[in-house]
C-alpha cells in the first residue's frame, strides 16, 4: 500500500430542507468548492470517484450515485456506491483511500449526500429504523432514539453516568457550532435548556439528538506525487480502521474488554463487554487505526477528534471506545472539561479545557446529519483544522486549534454495527 493524502474538501451547508436543489446539485456545490480550493486540480486529473448515500427510501432513486457522477462530468471513469448506515460517509472516505493506496487511482474523489427532507420527520425516523432487524427489532417499536436511550440507561446503571454529563456534550457541540457557518444549529445552551427540552426517549431529550438534514460533502484524495503537485499543504491519512458488530444489540456478547495499548486487564475486573453499553465496533476500528498510525497513547498523541455524536450519549460512549479514557469514565471525562475547546466560553465551570477537543466543528448534533455526507463532512472539517485554514473556510478563526497536527475522524452506524476510524496528519 502506498501513502494517501487528502488535498481538498468541500461541504454544502447542511439545512433542514433544500427544495431548491436536487441531490446532484448539492453534490456539485460541494465538488465545486473542493475544486476551487486546489486550482491546480483539473477535472481530467481525477481518475474516478466513490459516492455514498445511506437510504434508497429517502432518495427514492436507485443508482443515484451515477446520477451525481454524471452531473459532475466524471463519466466514463470508475465510480461505485458505498453504503453502511450512519457510517456511510466514513466508509466512502476509506473506499477513496483504498482506491489510491492500492494504486488503482492517483486522484480519487469521494462524495456523499442525503436528502432527508423529502419525507416528514416521523416517516424519516421509520426509514432510519428500517436499518434495524425488520423481523425482530423494528416491529417492536423501531426507533433509533429508543435504542440509544436503552444503551445509555445501561451505561448509567453500569458506570454512574448522569444526564447532566450528557447535556454537557450538547452544550459543547452547539456552542462550538456557533462559530461554524456550515452548521445547521448554532446555539448557546445551558445544561438546564437541554434537560428541559422535550423528552424523546427517556433520558434523551430533543437536544441530546442530532437532526435530519439535506446536504453533501466531497473530498479529494491523492497519491504522494500528485498531492504535492496539487497543494503545499496535503494532509496524510496515516491510519484507517473499520469495526463491525451484530445488527441486533440484543445479540451482543457479554465477554472481556478488547484492551487498548494503554489499558490492562485488571482495569476491568467485573465489566461484561461490550453488552449494550459499549461499542465493540468502535473499539475495533480505533485499535486498527491506532496500530497503523503508530499511536499507543491516543489522548496524548492525537490533537483533536471529530466523532459521530448522533446522540450525546454515543459521544460519551465513543470517548471510551477510542480509549481517550477508560470504559466507565466517559461521563467524568466530559464533566472535567477534557473534550471542550480551550478558547471557547461555554458558560460552564470546568476543571480543565482542551485536553483533546472533541467535535470542534459542532459535530452531528449541531451541524446536522445528512447521513451519506456526514463522515465526509468530518473529514473536510478535520482537513481544514490540520491545514490551519479554518479562518479561510469558516470566515472566522475562533474554531482554529493552535495545535492540530493530527486528528481523528469517526463515523458510526446502527446501534454500533459499522464504525470507521481514520487518522489524518499534517503531511508537509
Amino acid at each position, binding site marked *: 500500500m502506498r501513502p494517501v493524502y487528502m488535498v481538498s474538501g468541500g461541504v454544502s451547508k447542511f439545512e433542514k430542507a433544500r427544495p431548491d436543489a436536487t441531490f446532484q446539485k448539492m453534490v456539485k456545490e460541494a465538488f465545486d468548492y473542493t475544486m476551487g480550493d486546489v486550482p491546480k486540480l483539473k477535472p481530467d486529473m481525477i481518475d474516478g470517484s466513490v459516492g455514498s448515500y445511506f437510504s434508497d427510501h429517502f432518495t427514492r432513486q436507485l443508482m443515484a450515485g451515477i446520477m451525481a457522477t454524471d452531473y459532475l462530468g466524471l463519466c466514463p471513469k470508475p465510480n461505485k456506491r458505498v453504503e453502511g448506515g450512519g457510517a456511510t460517509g466514513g466508509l466512502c472516505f476509506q473506499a477513496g483511500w483504498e482506491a489510491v493506496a492500492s494504486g488503482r487511482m492517483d486522484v480519487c474523489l469521494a462524495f456523499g449526500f442525503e436528502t432527508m427532507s423529502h419525507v416528514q420527520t*416521523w416517516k424519516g*425516523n421509520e426509514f432510519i429504523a428500517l436499518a434495524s432487524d425488520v423481523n425482530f427489532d423494528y416491529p417492536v417499536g*423501531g426507533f433509533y432514539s429508543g435504542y440509544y436511550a436503552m444503551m445509555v440507561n445501561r451505561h448509567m446503571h453500569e458506570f454512574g453516568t448522569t444526564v447532566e454529563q450528557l447535556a454537557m456534550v450538547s452544550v459543547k457541540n452547539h456552542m462550538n457550532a456557533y462559530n461554524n457557518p456550515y452548521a445547521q444549529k448554532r446555539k448557546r445552551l445551558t445544561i438546564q435548556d437541554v434537560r428541559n427540552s*422535550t423528552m424523546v*426517549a427517556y433520558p434523551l431529550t430533543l437536544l441530546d439528538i442530532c437532526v435530519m438534514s439535506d446536504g453533501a460533502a466531497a473530498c479529494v484524495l491523492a497519491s504522494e506525487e500528485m498531492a504535492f503537485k496539487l497543494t503545499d499543504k496535503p494532509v496524510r491519512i496515516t491510519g484507517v480502521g473499520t469495526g463491525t458488530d451484530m445488527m441486533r444489540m440484543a*445479540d451482543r456478547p457479554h465477554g472481556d474488554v478488547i484492551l487498548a495499548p494503554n489499558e490492562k486487564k485488571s482495569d476491568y475486573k467485573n465489566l461484561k463487554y461490550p453488552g449494550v453499553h459499549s461499542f465493540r465496533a468502535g473499539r475495533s476500528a480505533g485499535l486498527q487505526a491506532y496500530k497503523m498510525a503508530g499511536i499507543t497513547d491516543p489522548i496524548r498523541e492525537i490533537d483533536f477528534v471529530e466523532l459521530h455524536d448522533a446522540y450525546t450519549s454515543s459521544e460519551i460512549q465513543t470517548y471510551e471506545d477510542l480509549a481517550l479514557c477508560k470504559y466507565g469514565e466517559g461521563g467524568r471525562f466530559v464533566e472535567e472539561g477534557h473534550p471542550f475547546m480551550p478558547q471557547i466560553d461555554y458558560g460552564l465551570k470546568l476543571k480543565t479545557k482542551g485536553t483533546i477537543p472533541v467535535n470542534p466543528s459542532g459535530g452531528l448534533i449541531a451541524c446536522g446529519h445528512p447521513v451519506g455526507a456526514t463522515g465526509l463532512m468530518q473529514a473536510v472539517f478535520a482537513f481544514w483544522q490540520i491545514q490551519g485554514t479554518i479562518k479561510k473556510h469558516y470566515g472566522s478563526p475562533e474554531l482554529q486549534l493552535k495545535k492540530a497536527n493530527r486528528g481523528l475522524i469517526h463515523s458510526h452506524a446502527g446501534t454500533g454495527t459499522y464504525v470507521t476510524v481514520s487518522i489524518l496528519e499534517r503531511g508537509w
Partner: protein
Amino acid sequence: MAKNDIGSKRSPRRNPAAKLEEVMTGTTVFGIPFPKDLNALKNMSPIVIKHPYYVEYVHSYGQDSPFFAGLANKKLLGTTCGRCKYTYATPRMHCTKCGKETKWVELPQEGRVHTFTTCYFGSEEFLKETPFHLVLVEFDGVDTLMLARLIGVEGPGDIEIGMKIRAKFRRNSQLKPTDVYFVPAG
C-alpha cells in the same frame, strides 16, 4: 413526566415557539405561473410534488418461522448451540461463535429488565402508540437478550434495571415479535 402534569396551581405556560404539526394533505396546483423572460426562470420557486409509495411484500421469516409459530402457541423459543453451550434469546439458526446449526429450545417466561426506555415519540408507524416502553430482557441461563415491549407501567420512573418481568401473549397472534410482551412480575 412533567409534560403531562396539568395541575390547577401551576403558573401559566405560554410558548411563543408553539407550532402546528405539518401535514401531508394539501391541494394539487393547476396553472403554474411562468415568466415571459426565460432568464427569470432561475428565480423560480422549486416545485414540490407529493409522491405516495405503498408496497405489499411477501415476506418470509424463513428458518426463524418456528419462533413466530411458538408465540402463536404461547411459547417463547430461543436457540442453543450444543458445541458452545451458548443460548440465544433472539433465535438464530446458526451459532455466531462456531457456525454450527443450533437447536430450538423453550425459554423461561420470566426474566429481568436488562435495560429500558420510554419512547414519547417514534417512527410514524408507532407514533400513535406513544408513549410506549421498550425493554431488553435477560433470562436465567440464556446468553443473549431479547427486545420487547413492557406494559403495566406508566413511565420510566416505574421501571428499574434488574426488575422481574413476565411474558404474556396475544390471544390473536399477528405473527409479529409483539405477539409476546412483558408485564411486571406480580
